Structures are given as structure tokens and as C-alpha cells.
């Protein structure tokens, strides 16, 4: 121990001496100063991207929560419009990511923003499903992630060329991010199915189970050729599908026991019981 301490001490001395005379002369030190700068720039960019990605995640999650209220209110259109506004905000943030990535290799920083993008895919596809009852395609998502950026310094210099200085920035969601986002979507659809059963909506669960089955088939088709995370999510997807199918089964069985008009009565009375509660929350 003693010797080690002595060693460390002498080394530090030696180094400070060397630092002193090396800082001006040594090409090694000069080279490492360049590396320091390069690494710092890269790390800073990475951190900024992580930060934006977090914001994107939070806002997308909030949008999803908002969209879940669709089952319990009479006018879904209001909520969908509100979600549109929120998603626009999210897209602005993704625009910031696109700006950070300008001239960079998107894959170099992919890990920094992939959680946010997946969450965004989940939110935007959920909204799309509620509105159109279909799966949003990758192209449709990417088509909305086009941003216009006007460059200020060019603007000042020449006023006759604003169309030139307006730059188009695009952000491309990778197919695997899309896939993982869609896998998350199934969880939301399951929740929506259960809550719509609670609200006495008899059609939605059946429509949802059909849609979920299609997605499930799609994922089975991809199987393990996809990225590693996909196979993990496939398990959760199976569970969600099971729950939805069980709910449909129950509805069908109970529906055959109770005459149609009475079933509607049972559900509508339940809705009136639930509604005031929801209003408070």
C-alpha cells in the first residue's frame, strides 16, 4: 500500500512536470487536444438529442392519455383535434432533432432519440386508428415529418432569394422504429378495448380484435428476422390479443344470453353510472 502511494505520488509529480513542458511542444498533446474537441462536440450533440427525445416521449404519452378519453365522451372529434394540436407540437420537436442531425449520419446518434420516435409512432398511429380505423403507413408518418427552415443569415444578405434560403429538412423514421412503435400501439388498443366494453360499446371491441389480429399476423410474418426487441414485444402483443379476444368472447356469450334490447339497456345504464365519475376526474 505504502509503495503504491509513493508510486502514485511520484507519477503525479512526473506528469505535472511533463504537462508543463509538453503542453507547448508535444505533438501528442496537440493531437489529443483536437480529439478532446471532437469528442466533446459529439457528446454534446448526443446529450441534446437525448433531451429532445425525452420531451417527445413525454408529449406523446400525454397525447395517448388524451386519446384514451375518446371512449367516454360523446364527441370524439374534439379530442382528435386537440390531439392534432399536441402532435403538431411533438413534430416541432422532431424538427429540432432533424436540425441537429443535418449533415450527420443519422445512425450515429440513433440510440439517442429512438425511444422518443417510437413513442411518437405509437401516438400518431393511435390517433390515426381512432380516426380512420386503419394502420398508418410508414410513408404517411414520414410525409408529415418535413420541416421548412429559413436561414437567417442568408435572409439578411439577399432578399431576392428567400425560396433558396428556405431549406427543407426531413426526418425519416426507420422501419424498425416504426415496427416497435406499432408493437406498442397494440397495448394501447387493448386498453381502449377494455374501457369501451366498460362503456357499453359493443362494436368497438370486435373491430379492435380484428385489427389486432391483423397486426399480430403481420408480426408473426416478420418473426425473428426483425431486430431483437421485436421478438420481445411479440410476447406482450400475444397477451394483449388474448385479453381482447377474451373480452369479445364474453360479450358474445353474454350477448346471446340477454336479448339484444336488454343488453343495450344493461350497458346504457352502466354508462350513466360511470359517466358522472369520469366527469369528476
Amino acid at each position, binding site marked *: 500500500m505504502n509503495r503504491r502511494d509513493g*508510486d502514485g505520488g*511520484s*507519477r503525479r509529480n*512526473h*506528469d505535472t512536470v*511533463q*504537462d508543463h513542458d*509538453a503542453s507547448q511542444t*508535444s*505533438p*501528442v*498533446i496537440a*493531437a*489529443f*487536444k483536437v*480529439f*478532446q474537441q*471532437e*469528442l*466533446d462536440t459529439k*457528446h454534446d450533440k448526443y446529450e441534446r438529442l437525448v433531451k429532445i427525445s425525452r420531451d417527445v416521449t413525454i408529449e406523446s404519452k400525454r397525447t395517448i392519455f388524451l386519446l384514451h378519453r375518446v371512449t367516454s365522451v360523446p364527441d370524439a372529434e374534439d379530442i382528435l383535434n386537440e390531439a392534432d394540436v399536441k402532435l403538431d407540437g411533438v413534430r416541432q420537436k422532431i424538427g429540432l432533432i432533424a436540425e441537429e442531425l443535418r449533415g450527420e*449520419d443519422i*445512425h*450515429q446518434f*440513433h440510440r439517442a432519440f429512438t425511444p422518443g420516435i417510437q413513442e411518437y409512432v405509437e401516438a400518431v398511429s393511435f390517433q390515426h386508428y381512432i380516426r380512420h380505423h*386503419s*394502420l398508418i*403507413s*410508414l*410513408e404517411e408518418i414520414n410525409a408529415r415529418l418535413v420541416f421548412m427552415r429559413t436561414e437567417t443569415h442568408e435572409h439578411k444578405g439577399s432578399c431576392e432569394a428567400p425560396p433558396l434560403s428556405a431549406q427543407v429538412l426531413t426526418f425519416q423514421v426507420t*422501419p*424498425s422504429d*416504426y*415496427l416497435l412503435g406499432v408493437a406498442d400501439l397494440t397495448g394501447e388498443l387493448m386498453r381502449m378495448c377494455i374501457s369501451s366494453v366498460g362503456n357499453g360499446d359493443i362494436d368497438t371491441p370486435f373491430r379492435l380484435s380484428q*385489427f389486432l389480429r*391483423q*397486426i399480430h*399476423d*403481420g*408480426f408473426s*410474418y*416478420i418473426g425473428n*428476422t*426483425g431486430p431483437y426487441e421485436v421478438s420481445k414485444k411479440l410476447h406482450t402483443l400475444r397477451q394483449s390479443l388474448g385479453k381482447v379476444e377474451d373480452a369479445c368472447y364474453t360479450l358474445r356469450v353474454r350477448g346471446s344470453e340477454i336479448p339484444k334490447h336488454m343488453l343495450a339497456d344493461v350497458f346504457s345504464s352502466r354508462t350513466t353510472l360511470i359517466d358522472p365519475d369520469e366527469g369528476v376526474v
Partner: protein
Amino acid sequence: MSVTEMFSYIQGFLSADQDVREEIRKVVQVLEQTAREILTVLQSVHQPSGFKEIPSKCTKARELFCTVRTQVADLKTKFPVEQYYRFHEHWRFVLQRLAFLAAFVVYLESETLVTREEAAQILGIEVVREKGFHLDVEDYLAGVLIMASELSRLAVNSVTAGDYSRPLRISNFINELDSGFRLLNLKNDPLRKRYDGLKYDVKKIEEVVYDLSIRGLAKEMDTVGDK
């Protein structure tokens, strides 16, 4: 677009991706083989007889680097150049080994640290990303760190072979590297982990220098080595 169509589109993308990875893996395997050959050539400097043969070993290694350059050129054709980082993981390891080998050869020849430009040139690749297949700064630094542990081994073996002045020169060199690395703000990543091992190499070499100096074996060299 129906759900089925969408998924078959994605599936098409994924299998194309896998094909590319398969191609890359094949080339990288060949590259790894060459890297091992170079390493075998350079390993012989640790033999007592190898110290006299350092220049000839270096020439031989340099020849093998020609093979590396053609293989790297082959690798470049396997994927679109702007997707370098998408497949980076596949060649990261071998590129670090090659950077180490290049740095080792240059050190043995001139006892200086290989610059990133030189290393890239030896491997037949670019330095900056914009120009194409390049040597990432972290991979270069990782290669330099591998060399540091190789040099600590070399210091021990050169004493065994009766070369008492080499450890002192290595010690100076490694200390300079250490102060260089201390300038960097490393994140908690693989490079940082490897850098954490550098202090043990430094310590090892210092012990060798200590052993030499208390026995007076490094005396006449001391004045020369410390400038």
C-alpha cells in the same frame, strides 16, 4: 395500404438489411484473419531474438497491410457509404485491432505515436466522415490504448532480452499518452473502460523502470532518456 401490405413492405426491408449484414460479416471475417496474421508477425518482437529483427518484422507487417487495404476496399462496396454507422458494430472490433497494429508498427519503427491520418492511410481509409469510409476517432483511440498494454509487455520482455534502455523510452512515451488521454472528457462508454486500464500499464512500466534504476542498470541511460 392494408396492414398485410405494410408488414410485407417492412419484411422486405428487413431481409434486405440482413443480406447486407451477411455480406459485411463475410468480408470482416477475412479482415480479422489478416489482422491475426499481422499480429503473429509482430508478436515475435517479444522473443529475445526478435529485438534485432524489428525492422524486418515491420516491413513484413507493412506488406500485409497491403492485403488489408484491398480487403477494406472490398468492404466499402458492400453498403452505401452514408450508412457507415448503421453497420459500424460489425467492423468496429477489427478496425480497432487494425488501428492498434498500425500504431504498433509505427511505434516500433520510429518510437512515435501514429497520427490518426497516418493510421487511416495505412489502412487505406479516410479520416473525416464526409469523405467516406473513415476511422472513427474512438476506434483510433481504442487502438492506441491496446498498443499501450502491448508496450508494457514489451518493456518487461526487453529487460529479459537485456535491452535496458527501451523501458525508459517506453515509459516516457506512455506517460505522454497518459497525459494526452487525461485531456479527454470520456463518457461512461467502452472507450472509458479501456482507458481505465491504462493506469495499470503505466504502473507496470514504472515498476520495470524502478527495478532497473535501483540496480543501477538504467544509469547511463537515465541522462539520455530523461532528456
